[in-house]
């Protein structure tokens, strides 16, 4: 095993201006209200509070 290897970030969290939050890579999404745990690889989450499919974005921010 290689030593002193820099930790490569496994995931990227991208805040889309006037849009949702995109998380991609190796991560686990835990939703406490809906009691779910998934590792989707990529996800678009609501940041405006208006989505009808929370925590996911449904493009309500455009309305």
């Amino acid at each position: 095993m290689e030593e002193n290897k820099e930790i490569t970030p496994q995931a990227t969290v991208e805040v889309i201006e006037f849009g949702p939050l995109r998380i991609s890579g190796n991560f686990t999404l835990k939703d406490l209200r809906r009691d779910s745990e998934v590792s989707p690889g990529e996800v678009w989450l609501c940041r405006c509070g208006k989505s009808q499919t929370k925590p996911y974005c449904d493009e309500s921010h455009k309305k």
Partner: protein
Amino acid sequence: MEKENKKFTGGRRYSNDEITVFWKPTACVHASYCYRELLEVFDPGRRPWIDMNGSTTDKIIEIVNMCPTEALTWKWNEDAKNDSVDKDQTNHVKFRRPELSNTQALPEPVPPVTAKVMIDGPIVIKGSFTLCYDGITKEVKESLVSLCRCGASDHPPFCDGRHRKVGFID
């Protein structure tokens, strides 16, 4: 016991007969576990906001251990007892009481990234990851960020606790 409410550097402390809870407001990411789980003790709308007579010591410890940051920590008043904090409270020991942590307790070399969607609150992302916002790219190393989901934060994309004031329900 008389209600105690003393300041210390960076925060306040609150005690009952057995434990002292330390509150560091600047470390809070508004994950909201405390008031959602135990409003009798942790009520942001009350002053002082922590009432140590509102519940049992065990329950208060349980909720303080849920706090993902150093905003809430606790100690036994009887100092000797702090040396034997149970392993099932490793969250507390590992993240917020480094002086008690076992140096060999470092888990896997690349800790997993978790994104927690808090009930009626922010999304708390923990681990090592790349964060991009407002044209800025940051490498977050084994730390956490709390991002707004309600759309009302005065400091987007970060949570500033406004979800509670605007009554955000998810």
